[in-house]
């Protein structure tokens, strides 16, 4: 009896541990991907994508004898139709980040900008502050990632340091997002009253769930009352763009630079049945007037095309901000 039991257990262990080969059906992988995207993506309608037509078009190019590289290129092209910087495709042999294919230009050059900044302090890997002409504060954030409490303490110390300045420049030209709560904590320091910031809705199997309203509430510890200019660009992404929505509705803030990237909702990861990973935006984000900037980006109040942002070792975007605050 016991010997039979041990044979059974060994067999089960073998089945549980065995590793299969990597063969899969490209047709099945394609179908699973397209069905998943149609179920989870929040951007099909907002970006004016005719998904069914796209699927039909690409489906006709899927053959089982495609090489892995060819199949990757096909899936890459399909996902690039979203033109969504949140969309990635990652395999063991290649990667695709949509932002690299959108022909966006950066409108900053840290070396050039640093000529304008004095007393530059590095608060974390992504947050720096300094002064411009001793009268303006300068805050650089390359993302909104990181611990909420730590970041909030950093924001508080910086805003406190700038309490005597006549204006503040927030350089978010390469802010590629992170936690929207970090963006909210910073915006709260620039508002004197509770204000509807934006709404979000998550994609679900029946469409979208109920709207969730996000508010800006005055920070109980610190308030910056003077004029603020936010520097944005096409590499201002995700939570960086949600900050821009807040900047649009607060009277004391203006935006200079270029339109933000084009994706404000939260991102989710999935995997295909061949193990490749991909990301997509599952959340719809609307400004207080119901405008969806997905696929478009938030336009600046003062447009300086990214191609004209750095000229002859001059930061034209920063100079415009200084001009507005002076």
């Amino acid at each position, binding site marked *: 009896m016991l010997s039979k039991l041990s044979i059974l257990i060994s067999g089960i262990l073998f089945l549980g541990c065995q590793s299969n080969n990597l063969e899969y059906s490209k047709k099945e992988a394609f179908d699973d991907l397209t069905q998943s995207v149609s179920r989870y993506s929040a951007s099909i309608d907002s970006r004016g994508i005719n998904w069914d037509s796209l699927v039909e078009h690409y489906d006709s190019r899927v053959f089982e004898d495609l090489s892995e590289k060819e199949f990757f290129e096909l899936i890459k092209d399909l996902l690039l139709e979203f033109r969504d910087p949140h969309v990635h495709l990652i395999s063991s042999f290649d990667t695709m980040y949509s932002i690299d294919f959108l022909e966006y230009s950066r409108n900053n050059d840290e070396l050039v900008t640093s000529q304008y900044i004095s007393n530059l302090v590095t608060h974390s890997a992504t947050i720096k502050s300094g002064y411009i002409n001793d009268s303006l504060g300068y805050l650089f954030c390359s993302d909104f990632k990181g611990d909420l409490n730590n970041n909030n303490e950093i924001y508080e110390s910086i805003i406190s340091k700038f309490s005597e300045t006549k204006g503040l420049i927030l350089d978010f030209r390469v802010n590629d997002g992170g936690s929207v709560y970090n963006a909210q904590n910073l915006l709260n320091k620039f508002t004197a009253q509770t204000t509807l910031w934006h709404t979000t809705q998550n994609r679900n199997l029946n469409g979208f769930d109920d709207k969730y309203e996000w508010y800006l509430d005055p920070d109980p510890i610190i308030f910056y009352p003077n004029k603020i200019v936010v520097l944005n660009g096409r590499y201002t992404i995700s939570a960086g763009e949600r900050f821009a929505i807040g900047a649009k509705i607060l009277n004391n803030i203006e935006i200079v630079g270029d339109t933000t990237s084009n994706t404000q909702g939260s991102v989710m990861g999935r*995997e295909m049945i061949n193990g490749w990973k991909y990301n997509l935006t599952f959340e719809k984000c609307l400004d207080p007037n119901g405008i969806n900037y997905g696929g478009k980006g938030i336009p600046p109040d003062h447009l300086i095309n990214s191609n004209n942002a750095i000229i002859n070792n001059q930061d034209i975007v920063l100079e415009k901000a200084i001009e507005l605050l002076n």
Partner: protein
Amino acid sequence: MKQYYLLGPFLLYSVLLLAQNKVVPFSMGIGVGVDIISIKDNAASPLNYSGFGLPIGVNGLKINKKWIHHFEALFVIPAITNNYPLTSNVNTQLNSWTKVNVSYQALRCIGSDSLSYLGVQLKSDFFYREYDFLDGMSWELVNGLNINFARKILLSDNSFLLTQISIPIVAYVNRKSSLTFDEIFLDDFYNNGPLSLFKYGTWKLNFDKWIAVEFNLLFHKKISNRLNLLSKIGINYYAIHFPEKVYNLNIPISCYLNYQF
């Protein structure tokens, strides 16, 4: 030949007598095991992940003339036990997962032979998985009431097998009802910890978007006056159909050394 006809009823009577008198005083012990897992959670991934963990467990058993009481708790927790990555057939891995199974059953003997039992089982099964490469996670927590039918097979004076089928009746099934992990959910989770996940539960009857069944085989052997060996192998299956389908097939194998009080 006639003698053999007399021997049959005698043997049957002896077995029944042995079964009726088979009393195991309360014993309790710790043990280890292997938990073989195969899970496919469509809300997180279209891939099936399989592998095994090495749980540690505690159990308590008491058998009297009418009743069997059995408690068992098995833990596969990265901090205290070995759990190996669950792998897919395309060699992707789930490195971080946690599984906790706690159950108590009370079975009462039925019928004239005293070898059959019917009873209830209270169960709490938790299975948490981190899809770290996808910035996601998924879990099921099922707290339920099962109806159990068991049949005892006597192997010797000191050992028996208990075969058992367990059908869940009702459970509080805890699984996030939406597909995605937005910032509101994540903020709640990071600030309030696992307790925040309880809000995603719902009561379910078996076969209402939730199907589960269990088979168990328990082997008990008295090895000394104070020590008992108890081992158990099961086949557990559940499918939960919201927000998308998750299928889990489990083969938990455990072995305990129980001290008899």
